[in-house]
């Protein structure tokens, strides 16, 4: 193996950053699951709230995308 310690650190950091995606996954699942349970309690109100569902998912997902971005930056740009 060649390479230097900086590269090693960057790769390790990229791997660690990917853990953030798990958090985003939990968040998205939380949003969707709570939407579903609410929709099953009151199905007539559900169609009006799908926009809020997507907004919530988008917010939760954005933070996971941030961690992915950090991983990419560490892999390719550092």
């Amino acid at each position, binding site marked *: *193996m*060649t*390479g*230097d310690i900086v*590269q090693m650190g960057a790769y390790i950091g990229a791997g660690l950053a990917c853990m953030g995606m798990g958090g985003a996954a939990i968040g998205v699942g939380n949003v969707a699951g709570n939407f579903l349970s609410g929709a099953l309690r009151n199905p007539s109100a559900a169609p009006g709230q799908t*926009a809020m569902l*997507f*907004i919530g*998912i*988008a*917010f939760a*997902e*954005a933070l996971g*995308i*941030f961690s*992915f*971005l950090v991983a*990419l930056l560490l892999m*390719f740009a550092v």
Partner: protein
Amino acid sequence: MIEGKRIVAEETGGFAIYPMEQFIVRPLLGGDTVGLFTITNVTLWMALTVLAVSAVLVFGSRGRALVPTRSQSIAEVLYSFIYKMVEDVAGHDGVKYFPYIMTLFMFILFSNLLGLIPWAFTTTSHIAVTAVLALAVFISVTVLGFVLHGASFLRLFWISSAPLALRPVLALIEIISYFVRPLSHSIRLAGNMMAGHAVVKVFAGFAGALGIFGILPIVAVTAVYGLELLVSVIQAYVFTILTCVYLRDALHPHH
């Protein structure tokens, strides 16, 4: 750094996958440097996006039929979908900004979808593009808020329903989140597009390297491709609906 990566790729036996290569901006008409006016693949794919949108919305509706044809139905469904979204989210006085929001939606949607064609270039995977889109929304919405409401637009950050002691803290949080908006708005779109295309490329690279077992990554690529179609549409939708939400904040800051 670059040399090290290449060596690693060669030593591990042919896993030479460059998932980021597809995002390179290249001059189309020869030459190596990308100047301000160079015709690049960005130019090509943006032009194709404009053409595709025009084809769907202008060419599709040319019949003006009372009973719509198939292509006219597509144009009408897109139109009424976004129109209803603007009306529902931004309120009735947001309707006059509908053409701009429709432009944003159609541009992002078709950029995302055209980018899924093999060998295509995804313009919306570039942070420069999405940052301009998001900043345009951010700046115009902020200016609009101040023009319409003057200094009282600042009460957007002063939550009058909260206890007085909490309000400065909340105001700080609101201001930070307000200025993070263009960042998350742009990075969400670019990151989603970039991530999806990189994943497809990585799986495709596995398929080339695995020989007969390459069928497994091909199945995975197919599944991921379906997911990417969904993500393309959802991200265009999310970008648009967030624009509408920001527009509502500018039009009605005292909720």
